[in-house]
């Protein structure tokens, strides 16, 4: 029996220790970056996604579960541009993990890598929930995902140098598939060019810009201020002069305002997944855009 024990311990130890050494722990603030890390990191990363598609990524609390996960993270991947300002700084400070503090290699922001739109000319909370650096919902344009993928892959390689070649190969494969997919989506979405829409929240400027669609008005009177009847009536007035095909809302938003306007303006309501997991079809980044395009095409009919 005594000679048997060290062997048993060795097995037990390797079982216990193996997952800890095998993977880079990545804390993604929103599902799109979690999905991108999975594409780029394969089985060399272990991804924890802090929010789901049915949550407004702005209105999240620094929950105990998030602090515990940030404590163990090697890399935090965030959108930035103040999307997570209400909770991420508190989570990283309380986690006691110096690796993932802002400015360290273990902290990555996506927004600085893309061209931001809707930068407010007037910074004033009277204008609603405005973001000084521009609209942070950058993931709705797949070209932005491509812009983030390269530097993110480089960051993985920097943090986990022994696997750099693996990350590079995965990135190359992803970039090719992604580029082909963008071409396909653009062909499929050709009929959407010039289509006028309403949006519930100003969450889609990048998507509409990519597909050449036109945002006529938003149902929220100011960003993140719930639609009021007075404002909806104004929007209804606008729609009488400028016909629109549909009203777009994100999966996490209440459907009341969209339904209200859709019934009166006789237009379609299109609930877009907005990010990975926003509906049953949007299982990963590819199916997210497959589903988004299909829903928009259906809404435009």
């Amino acid at each position, binding site marked *: 029996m005594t000679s048997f024990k060290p062997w048993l311990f060795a097995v037990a130890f390797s079982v216990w220790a193996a997952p800890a050494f095998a993977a880079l722990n990545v804390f993604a603030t929103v599902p799109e970056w979690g999905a991108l890390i999975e594409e780029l990191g394969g089985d060399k990363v272990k991804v924890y996604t802090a*929010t*789901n598609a*049915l949550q407004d990524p702005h*209105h*999240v*609390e*620094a*929950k*105990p*579960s998030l*602090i*515990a*996960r940030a*404590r*163990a993270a090697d890399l935090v991947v965030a959108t*930035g541009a*103040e999307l997570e*300002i*209400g*909770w991420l*700084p*508190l989570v990283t*400070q*309380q*986690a*006691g*993990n*110096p690796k993932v*503090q802002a*400015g360290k290699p273990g902290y990555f*922001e*996506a927004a*600085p*890598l893309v061209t931001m739109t809707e930068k407010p000319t007037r910074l004033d*909370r009277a204008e609603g*929930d405005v973001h000084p*650096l521009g609209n942070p919902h950058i993931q709705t344009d797949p*070209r932005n995902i*491509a812009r983030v993928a*390269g*530097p993110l*892959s*480089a*960051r993985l390689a920097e943090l986990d140098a022994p696997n*750099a070649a693996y990350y*590079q190969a995965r*990135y190359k494969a992803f*970039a*090719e598939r992604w*580029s*082909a997919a*963008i*071409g396909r989506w*653009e*062909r499929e979405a050709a009929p959407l060019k010039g289509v006028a829409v309403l949006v519930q929240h100003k969450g889609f400027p990048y998507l509409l810009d990519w597909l050449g669609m036109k945002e006529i008005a938003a149902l929220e009177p100011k960003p*993140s*201020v*719930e639609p009021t009847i007075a404002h909806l009536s104004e929007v209804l007035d606008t729609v009488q002069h400028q016909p629109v095909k549909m009203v777009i809302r994100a999966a*996490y938003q*209440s459907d009341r305002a969209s339904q209200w306007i859709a019934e009166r303006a006789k237009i379609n309501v299109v609930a877009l997944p907005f990010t990975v997991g926003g509906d049953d079809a949007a299982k990963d980044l590819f199916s997210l855009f497959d589903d988004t395009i299909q829903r928009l095409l259906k809404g435009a009919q």
Partner: protein
Amino acid sequence: MACPFRVARALVVALALLLSSPLYAASDAEVAEIREQLRQLRESYEARLQALEQRLKDAEASKTREAAAAPVPAPVPVATASPGSSPASGIAAFNPAISAVLQGRYANLSQDPEKFAISGFAPGGEIGPGRRGLSLGESELAISANVDHLFAGNLIVSLTPENTVSVEEAYGVYTAAPYGLVPKFGRFFSGLGYMNEQHQHAWDFIDAPLAYQAFLGGQYGNDGLQVKWIAPTEQFLEFGAEVGNGDSFPGSERNKNGVGSGVIYAHAGGDIGASHSWRAGLSYLETRARDRDYSQVDLAGNNAQVGFNGTSHIAIADFVWKYAPNGNAQNTNFKLQGEYFWRRESGDLTYDVDGALGLTNTSAYTSRQSGWYLQGVYQFMPYWRVGARYDRLDPGHVDYGANAAYLDSPAFHPERYTLMVDYTPSEFSRIRLQYGQSKTLAGVTDNQLFLQYILTLGAHGAHKF
């Protein structure tokens, strides 16, 4: 309006040239050499520019061919644009985050707030329902920033309606500590219990639970050092230890070297599915008091001064559970929280009455008391919440020793019922209406009605759990 600047810039350049020209007493040979170097530079840059332009043209052509905007796969260890917000510039770039909280209220109290007391409990700190009528609440000014690569700092100053200023919190955090340690030092609200670390404007009711008022004088803050440790597990486990000067209630200033108070606590928390999250904890505080005075009515009906010298031990069990459908708290959500306090005090008590006899007597004193509250807050539609709270204190067992001849052991159970409704049109403003029925003295009911506003301006606050 750019013209004046352009003129100014031209002047500066001209001035610089004028000033620098005498220094350049260069020979003809040198001038020729510089000309030659310039020419070579120009040629080499022109060639490189042309090459780049050609590459750009090619890239654009291939892009239109593919009708896709996929980038060329980047070579891997590439220096990426530094993540983080685009760097601000100018003299204000290093200004810390500043925010202010403005509060005001109207209070309608059926009992005189000057006579507020909690029967059977020695009060201290800022307690009671506050003044009647219209008044300004506490205004708060908060300044925070990273100090450098090692420290972050936070200053929270409270401006009272009586025009006094107090430093609520002023602490540094060492941000570079390894192994999940978070050291904090200075003046701060202790991490014990659940509500203690929250500032008053973040509470769900206008006032603190009776247990906080009776046992901690409203809120427990201290000057000292705190170290928290977060366990490296998926399950949230946090352990904290604090040492302080022990000046604040239930302790008191004792003019001593060394440590005056100590706190230890453990918190666990996590999620259950996407919709539920929770946190629970146990805390323990030990502190000492010297001549902690308060007035109490004695058996003869005289108003006596009593002074406590001794040790105070407090244990707290706390929990909070939050529910939001799919984790989306925007439309509806529910929060249930409760805390249970035990306190044991032992030492001696001095009884002093200015009656006909002018009597003073000191004898041994021990007490075992407890209290708790439970509150629920429900957001039933965007912006609107309702809440209910129940408070109860148990006078427990008090042994006055020889002073039992003058003082009666308390038997009354103070309690309070509170209801509130609040309207939160944005993250930065809240208006609240609160009604409470408070029975902190035997046979006396205080009907309390409050209308309160809370406005937050400046830097975006943190969404604390």
